[in-house]
């Protein structure tokens, strides 16, 4: 009962409270309380994640598995940022409460944590994401093949969007007068048509289908029909 019935009851109750909170002003405060609890548990989840990170990397170091030095670097960087942030080392003192150390601002661009954010975490994250541009180019060369009508439609549309996004595409169709019958062939108009009519409608349909799926899954969860989350419990995190 503790491992199945109680979690199902908790899930159903919290879901029903959120639904009731939407429809009735008398139950609106219940929903606000539930969301507050949700935020607190989400905060604890970060501690869980950090704890898991430490556990996995410390295991790697203690067992001297290949690459254990990188685990050590992960832990050192983790602890360094954690200490700076939790103890607010180098925080900008608060204007209203300058004598209270922990009232200082660690999010300011002038703080030590702000320095770490702008010169370590930020560049690393941005550069990781920017690598995708290279892989998109490589994939375009190796994988994008116009083999049938569907792939020709996809590639043709991609060409129009890529060209029209730049001045080159606009320049190519500049000779077409704006009020001529074939003005719709101007790249910027084709782009507008594709994005505002076809792409918008296609995404609208996908959105409607996804929303119906989300609604169906949510109802199944709240009614206790879908219990897949119960198998996620257990000793291994």
């Amino acid at each position, binding site marked *: 009962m503790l*491992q199945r019935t109680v*979690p199902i009851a908790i899930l159903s109750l*919290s879901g029903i409270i959120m639904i009731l909170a939407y429809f009735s002003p008398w139950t609106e405060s219940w929903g606000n309380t539930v969301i507050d609890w949700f935020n*607190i548990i989400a905060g604890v989840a970060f501690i869980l994640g950090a704890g898991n990170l430490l556990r996995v990397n410390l295991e790697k170091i203690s067992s001297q598995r290949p690459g254990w030095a990188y685990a050590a670097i992960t832990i050192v*960087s*983790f602890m360094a940022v954690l200490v700076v942030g939790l103890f607010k080392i180098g925080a900008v003192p608060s204007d209203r409460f300058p004598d209270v150390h922990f009232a200082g601002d660690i999010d300011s661009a002038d703080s030590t944590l702000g320095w770490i954010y702008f010169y370590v975490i930020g560049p690393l994250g941005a550069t990781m994401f920017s690598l995708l541009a290279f892989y998109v180019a490589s994939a375009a060369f190796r994988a994008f093949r116009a083999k049938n009508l569907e792939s020709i439609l996809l590639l043709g*549309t991609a*060409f129009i969007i890529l060209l029209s996004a730049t001045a080159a595409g606009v320049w190519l169709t500049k000779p077409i007068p704006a009020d001529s019958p074939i003005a719709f062939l101007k790249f910027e108009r084709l782009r507008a048509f594709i994005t505002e009519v076809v792409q918008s409608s296609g995404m609208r349909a996908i959105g409607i289908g996804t929303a119906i799926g989300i609604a169906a899954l949510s109802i199944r969860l709240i009614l206790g029909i879908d219990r897949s989350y119960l198998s996620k*419990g257990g000793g291994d995190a």
Partner: protein
Amino acid sequence: MSNADANAPRPPQQGSRRGSYRLLFISIAALFTSVAVMQMASAAQDPALDPAVAAEKWSNLWTTVGIWVAALLTLGIFSFLYKDNPVYKVCESIFVGASAAYYMVNAFWTSLVPKLIAPIAPAFTKANLLPELTLPASDQAYYSDLALAVVPLILGIMLLFRLLPKGGWISVWPLAFVIGTTAGIRLLAAIETDVLAQVSSAGSSVIVYNETTDAAGVVTRTIDWAGVGKGVLSVICVLTVLTYFFFSVEHKGAVGKTARVGIWFLMITFGASFGLTVMGRITLLSQRFEFLLKDWLGFG
């Protein structure tokens, strides 16, 4: 390869190549370091300065150090494009550790302190952590806040049981709470804004008017046939794509043909999405190169 081959000593060329790579790396690092030191020295020279100016110079020094650190980390990540290598792995490890800690610090100060620690120990929190905190007006208010904080406190502790080898099933209770809350919020939002509002938008875009006002102020409405055409096409697109995704009915005959048209619209949609994705990724990459060329090396 036999064990004898695996244990055989490496040929001398491989050993000397590794040595020369190491020497090259050390030389480049030394060159960068010396240029950085010279830049820092010029930023912090002349100690007999006005304190405010000295503070600004010190700040400039840290900015210079920061730009160098950011540039070297950026190049370290880019080195992965040539080949997976230890420099990239070091940068990756730093990123994982630093960003995990940043999330945790943020969660601690924005969630746990104001919503968990404050209701439990308000006087301590106000004196040491959150001086802007409003203390409970009465004991009743304190116990009321405490009661509301006890439930998430217990659920939060139960969540941490996930780290233990045994008893991890206890963490399913707070997980169920999180899933239930999310399901309740998303159910209504999905139906309201992604179904009802979208169907309404699709239907209302079919009839489009042009409004013109003449000199006398009389407003004339005429049907915008181009707009109507676009609206009709939009509705056809939505219906055909939805037909394609309706897998409960076999795609044969009229349904099959309709689904096929839906696939064509989907291909145009995905082609447009690909074009936009390329634009987005290239922008990120150009921003990194701008940083390296302008902020670090001073070109452009």
